[in-house]
């Protein structure tokens, strides 16, 4: 399984755009990149998933460079409710066991 490296924490203010970068130098050809969000005392929640280039949905964008050795989760105009831990994971779809390793994630604190 490809290992990921993320910043331990980030601070932001309401209304700003937040970009969280994840390094995954050993990503395999079949691996996808998935981001989860976790609030205290809740299970992680899927945010976005991508393979290359850019993916966008109603809550976030995911930028993946051509070499796929890193990815950036972009949260537009964050609010206080975006304060959470964000996890970056890499793994292959339909891999049978589909074991994804959650690291310590990035603790995002959004202030007024």
């Amino acid at each position, binding site marked *: 399984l490809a290992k990921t490296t993320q910043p331990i924490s980030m601070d932001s203010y309401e209304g700003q755009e937040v970009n969280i970068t994840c390094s995954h130098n050993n990503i395999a050809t079949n691996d*996808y990149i*998935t981001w*989860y969000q976790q609030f205290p*005392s*809740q*299970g*992680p*929640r*899927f945010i976005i*998933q991508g393979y290359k280039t850019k993916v966008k949905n109603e809550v976030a964008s995911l930028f993946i460079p051509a070499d796929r050795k890193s990815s950036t989760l972009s949260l537009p105009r964050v609010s206080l409710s975006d304060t959470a831990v964000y*996890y970056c994971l890499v*793994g*292959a*779809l*339909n*891999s*049978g*066991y*589909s*074991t*994804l*390793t*959650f*690291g*310590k*994630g990035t603790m995002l604190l959004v202030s007024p």
Partner: protein
Amino acid sequence: SQTIHQWPATLVQPVGSPLSLECTVEGTSNPNLYWYRQAAGRGLQLLFYSVGIGQISSEVPQNLSASRPQDRQFILSSKKLLLSDSGFYLCAWAGAGNEQFFGPGTRLTVL
């Protein structure tokens, strides 16, 4: 739609007592099922995963065991709890893709 249930929501148990946490999934068939533990201020640690009835794989040696008696039921057990077993236990399921859907979790405190 699919839903995942865990119970109990919170549990306080003495050291040396047994444990049984249950997880059930509705609205899907033959899911991959997972048990995670999250200690305070830490990331999620994968404990067990299952790709089918009676098929259990363990990621780390520990004081816990898991069973899957039915397609959509996953049980986490211990014969004798240790203080270090305290934590937030999460069950998750995954379908064809590798997006995992998590249950509400069980907060276990071992005293």
